């Protein structure tokens, strides 16, 4: 019954610790606690954000405790575009580069902003669920969300300016 939450719980931990073994440990801890507390679970309350809150707590504790502060490096899937018309190689390369830049910008955010982005966009949680999973008031989620988007836009604009000035322009996409 709980298997369907397994992936999102594991991934939520992975986005915090960046290590599969640590993420697995944190996820296990979350499920163990979940099993024990199932009988006490408030009816009508949402299970998913509740268990995510446990695993994110676990994962953040582990990250804080680990003296070795490895920088998190998320990788993007190396994939062919799914569905639709096959893009030109130029378009594909540009899109990929843009994604890498966006990912780098996200990873460059401060931790709270990064957590909001990861929860809202990578784990696809709603604002309310994000608030519960992170244990923040909804207003805080809203403002951190807005701040994170603002920072990302600034960063991307700066990247773009730099790209233009360096003359490495390859803006010849066919419409």
């Amino acid at each position, binding site marked *: 019954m709980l298997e369907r939450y397994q992936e999102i*719980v594991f*991934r939520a931990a992975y986005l915090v610790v960046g290590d599969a073994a640590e993420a697995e440990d944190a996820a296990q801890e979350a499920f163990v606690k979940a099993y024990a507390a199932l009988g006490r679970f408030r009816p009508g309350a949402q299970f998913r954000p509740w268990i995510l809150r446990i695993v994110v707590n676990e994962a953040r504790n582990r990250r804080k405790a680990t003296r070795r502060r490895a920088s998190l490096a998320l990788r*993007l899937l190396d994939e062919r575009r799914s569905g639709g018309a096959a893009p030109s190689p130029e378009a594909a390369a540009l899109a990929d580069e843009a*994604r890498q830049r966006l990912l780098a910008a996200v990873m460059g955010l401060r931790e709270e902003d990064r957590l909001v982005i990861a929860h809202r966009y990578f784990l696809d949680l709603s604002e309310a669920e994000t608030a519960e999973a992170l244990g923040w008031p909804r207003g805080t989620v809203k403002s951190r969300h807005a701040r994170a988007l603002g920072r990302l836009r600034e960063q991307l604009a700066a990247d773009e300016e730099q790209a233009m000035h360096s003359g490495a322009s390859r803006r010849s996409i066919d419409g």
Partner: protein
Amino acid sequence: MAEPGRAGSAQNLQEALHELGDRIAYPPTPPIVVAVRSRLAAPPGARRFPLFSLPAGIRLACAVLALLLVAGVGMALSPAARTTVAERLGLPGIAIMHLPALPSLDASRAPGADATAVGAPDRERLGLGEPVTLAEARSRVAYRVLVPTLPELGAPDEVYVGEPPRGGQVALVYRERPGVPLAPETDIGVLLTQFDGSLVIGQFGKGLGPGTQLEGVQVAGANGYWMEGAPHVVFRYQDGAGVVRSEPTRLAANVLLWQRGDLVLRLEGAIAKDQALRIAAWVG
């Protein structure tokens, strides 16, 4: 198609972020729920898996799970009764959890076998690690191994080195000694272990059964914890890398835990408190 590189509207950026999220290369999801559930489902009388030789992550899950099973029973107590138990313990806090008694020491013996025929398999169940000499143990770990110097205890009969904990744990086993009772169902009088870590203070220990007494003591000027009637207990420590881990006690007896510099020391046995404190005071 939204081009993420263009610093455009919020809409484009949010779409781009969603798209990015779809493309993150996560490691494959391990079968977490199955692992947790299979531990939960194991019937009590069945042949037991060697708990202590499982990877640390699974052991932690088992320990916490077992804790919660006990806590589930404890939930039957009224809130007032539970609070009384908690207050009675009253220590500023060492994270200690109680496990229900594991029949593991008996299960792998054939029925009808001589109950006193304990020996090498017993050590395996205790999960102390690899049998070595004291000199070998010293060469295997980075820290200076401390040894009890109490004359009546003499030299350890057996020495083991094992991992986890990270960095290696040295276990010293003392068998029969005059005046030292044996721990239940073993031929061990005193077990002393040490490893690099710090006891986790600040988390209140809960879930200890009413038959267990927990007391703060002083060992060579450091804080120590004495537990009597604690058949199976898990305590938390921070390992050399700063990660919090759980460590189960090995004998169904009394425990003295204390911190000496970078080392967590643990003395287990059916010995009385003053005896344990005396041994501990002579550890150097």
